[in-house]
C-alpha cells in the first residue's frame, strides 16, 4: 500500500466524510514536511505518517468536539452465532455498509483495525503509533475484529445490500 493510500485509509477512520478525510491527508503531508524541515528523520515513513495523521485527527476531533460514534446504523447490538459468518458476510459486503460498520466500533478498536488490518502495520508499530502497550493493541484489535464480524453478520441477516 502506498503512503498516500495508507494515510487516506487512516484518515477515513478518523473523519466521517470523504471531504474531511482528504483535508486530514493534506494536513498530514504538510505537517510531515514541516517536521522534516525541522530535522525529523524517521526510520520508517509509514508509522511516522500514521502517527502524524492520528495525532492531527485527534486534534481536529478535540477542536470540533464532534461525537465519533454518531452512527445511524443500528447494527452493533448483540452478537449472532453463525457457523460460517465470513463467507456469508463477505459475499454480501458492500463498501458503504462496511465503512459504516467500522464506525460502530470504539475509536481505539477502529484505529487498531485501520493500522494493522488495513494499512499493514505490525502490532508493535501500531502500539508505537497509538502510544499504547502492544497488549492493548492486541486486545483492541481482536475486539474490533469480533465486533465488526458481528455487525456485518447482522447486516447480512437483515438482507441489506
Amino acid at each position: 500500500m502506498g503512503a498516500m493510500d495508507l494515510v487516506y485509509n487512516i484518515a477515513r477512520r478518523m473523519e466521517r466524510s470523504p471531504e474531511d478525510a482528504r483535508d486530514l491527508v493534506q494536513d498530514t503531508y504538510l505537517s510531515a514536511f514541516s517536521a522534516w524541515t525541522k530535522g525529523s528523520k524517521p526510520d520508517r515513513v509509514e508509522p511516522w505518517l500514521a502517527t502524524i495523521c492520528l495525532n492531527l485527527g485527534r486534534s481536529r476531533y478535540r477542536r470540533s468536539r464532534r461525537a465519533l460514534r454518531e452512527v445511524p446504523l443500528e447494527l452493533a447490538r448483540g452478537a449472532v452465532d453463525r457457523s460460517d459468518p465470513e463467507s456469508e458476510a463477505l459475499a454480501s459486503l458492500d463498501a458503504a455498509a462496511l465503512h459504516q460498520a467500522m464506525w460502530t466500533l470504539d475509536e481505539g478498536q477502529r484505529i487498531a483495525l485501520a493500522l494493522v488490518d488495513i494499512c499493514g502495520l505490525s502490532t508493535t508499530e501500531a502500539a508505537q503509533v497509538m502510544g499504547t502497550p502492544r497488549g492493548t493493541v492486541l486486545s483492541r484489535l481482536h475486539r474490533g475484529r469480533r465486533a465488526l464480524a458481528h455487525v456485518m453478520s447482522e447486516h447480512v441477516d437483515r438482507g441489506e445490500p
Partner: protein
Amino acid sequence: MGWRTHDPERDAAAYVSGEMGQSERERFEAHVLGCDDCWGEVSIGRDGRAMAEAAREMAPAGLSDSIRGVVSAGPIPQPARRRLALVPAAVLLLAIVVVVGALLGSRGEPGPIAAAVAAARTQTIAARGPSVHPAPDLARMGLALVVDGRVELAGLPSDAFLYRTSSGDSVVLFVSDESFPVARDATLREMGNGGWSARSDGMTLVCGDRPTNYLVIAQDPSLVGLVEHAFVSGTLIRSGRRCFLLRPCD
C-alpha cells in the same frame, strides 16, 4: 507441552495477525485444538480481519493534485499552513514529493533516483523555475508535453519534462548537466548508448550520458525506449527556441 498462557483475545489477535513465530504458532495451534474459547476467538478474529481488509480503499486519484492546488492557492487560515505558505508553493510541493518519495517506494535508491521515480509515479513536476534546456518536441511521436521545469532531485539540479500519450500514459525525461547516480540493481548497458537500465517501484528507468546526462522513467518499458531513442538520436528533438542537442538546427 501446554500453552504458556490463556488469554484468548490477545493470543487470537497475534495468531490471526501472523505475528507468532513458528514454534509459538505450533504450540498455540496444538492448544487451540482442545480449547473451545481460543478456537472461537480465532474463528471470529479471522472473520473480522477479512472484513476489515475488505474496507481498504485507494486514495482518490486527484488527491495529490488537490494538495498541490491548496498549497499553490496561497495562505491558508491555519497556523501550520500559514507558515508553509511563506515558502514558494512549487518548492514546497517538490520537497514533499522528494521527501516522501525518497523515503518510500524507491527505498534503497540513491536520493535523486528515488525522487525522480516518485515524481514520475505521481506525474508531478514541481518546478522551481523554468527549465534550462528547451523542451524536446516529441509531438511527432504522439507525445504531448504536459509540463516542464527546473527541479532538484535530492540536491541534483535537473530539467524535467513530463509527456503524455493520447491514451494517457506518461513518461518523464530528466536532463542534467550532472551525472545521475546509478539505480540500485541497475543493469549496465554496454551496447547502444551505454548507461544503465533498472526497474524501481514498478517503473522502468534508463539512463545515459550522451549527448548529455539524461534519465527516462515511465511505467511502460516500450515508452521509455521510444523516448530514449528519440532523445538520443536527436532527429525529432527540437524546440521552438533552439535545437536541444548538439546537432545543428536545420
